[in-house]
């Protein structure tokens, strides 16, 4: 699986903006905790927060609708809207991100039908609910003002692995059961 180095992330932070990087770091760390699979990143939000105190910070521990400093978030209603149902969050995630239903499904490691069902009110597993909130928070601070621009930011692969695929990689797909005793090359080279 493609790994992401600290240097790569640092480059990406520089190119996409600090608040985004912080939210992204949180989302990745959280998703790693939920699903496993990503290495621990060698940076934390605290020093960055001090250095860039004037910028909007996404704080996972802050009360809903407020930033890390306790000030009401000027862009609240998106990540901090606790009244939003899981279905609304997923629908909003899909709309804001510009991603297809299939791509949203892969962010959660589920089929596009599951995403469709969620949006139509089917229940979500707790880990998916938690993940939807975190990914939505990330998408809301992506650079860009349109779904196309946010989608482009998610899929930007100039530095190697896009943010989208780093999130996908954080999913725990479970143990692979279908294994072959011979590689594809061995099977045709006999």
């Amino acid at each position, binding site marked *: 699986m493609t790994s992401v180095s600290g240097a790569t992330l640092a480059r990406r932070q520089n190119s996409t903006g600090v608040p985004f990087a912080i939210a992204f770091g949180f989302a990745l760390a959280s998703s790693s905790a939920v699903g496993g699979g990503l290495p621990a990143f060698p940076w934390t939000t605290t020093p960055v927060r001090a250095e860039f105190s004037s910028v909007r910070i996404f704080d996972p521990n802050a009360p809903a609708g407020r930033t890390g400093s306790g000030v009401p978030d000027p862009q609240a209603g998106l990540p901090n809207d606790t009244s939003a149902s899981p279905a609304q969050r997923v629908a909003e995630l899909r709309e804001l991100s510009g991603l297809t239903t299939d791509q949203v499904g892969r962010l959660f490691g589920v089929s596009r039908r599951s995403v469709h069902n969620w949006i139509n009110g089917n229940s979500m597993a707790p880990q998916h609910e938690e993940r939807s909130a975190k990914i939505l928070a990330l998408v809301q601070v992506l650079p860009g003002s349109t779904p196309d621009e946010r989608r482009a930011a998610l899929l930007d692969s100039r530095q190697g692995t896009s943010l989208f*695929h780093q999130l996908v990689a954080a999913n725990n797909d479970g143990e692979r059961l*279908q294994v072959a005793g*011979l590689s594809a090359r061995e099977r045709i080279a006999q």
Partner: protein
Amino acid sequence: MSGGTHGVLVADDCSNLRQGDVVGLPHLMLPSDIDAEAVSMPTPGGVVVLSQTCDVVQPSKTRCMVAPVVPDTDKATLSAARKGQKPLHLYLEPTASEPSPCVADMEYAVSVPKKVLAGSPIVARYVEQASGKPARAVAWRVGRAFSRFPFPDEVYPVFARLRRQAQDKAGSTGNFGRVLDLVEDLRVSADQWSSPGRVLTLYVVVAEERLIAIDDIDPRWRWSKDRVVGLRDDETESGLSLDRACELILANLDGDESSLAHLWRVFGAKVQSNLLAPALNDEVVSFDVLVLSDTEMTFRQHQHSESLDLEVLSDSTGTSL
């Protein structure tokens, strides 16, 4: 004996046996050429359990399928078995506790009453976890011996160039071979297999970690030296050779995933034009290549295709490929 089975005897009900275990049974009774008679076949290396573990340990099952260990296996026999060149030679990979590999000859596979095995020593255990990957790999090799798709002889010539490319030195250690080693599966589908005029598709399935889905490609990606590691000034997508496409895939494995996706597409186009199209004939009139990520292949496509497994073949004229 090793692997935690030292001194362990097969239980009366075989409840401690697993698929892949080697049992120290000195002889195996096999049906002979003469009706209703059995002959005793010496099995100095013992016999390998072929039945699935869940069947072996099931009290309701009274018999167990075994195959004799090929005695005194030389390097060539081991190598051929490991590579799957003789599907009936079951290769059991060495493990930490069983450092020597083993080959069982499934041509002589036979079902024996469990009580025949009871009390014999378990001399080797190649599957340490009954539900782990090594267990799946052994089961896959057992299954492969009996479940390969019978591709019609008439279609084999169309694979000849692909096969030769994979067999020669460049195919095993060169760029092409190294790229093939990144492929999870090669699968083939046809509009129909039974008569000439077939339209085939080769699916080159690559893990998402090495090939992102087509919808995930960076919309701002452009073919340029900035995005493709190792690209020369004068190189265009359409001008790349198969080997050069492979070289660039290898150079971009840790680079821009969108570039890698485009290079895989070039790879598929070159495989189609260089290795498959020249071999088209009346039997196979069209052979498309689709390189896709494992997240893109649908279950339907999987059901309508077969894994390409070209063990010792001959075409309809009897000419070995």
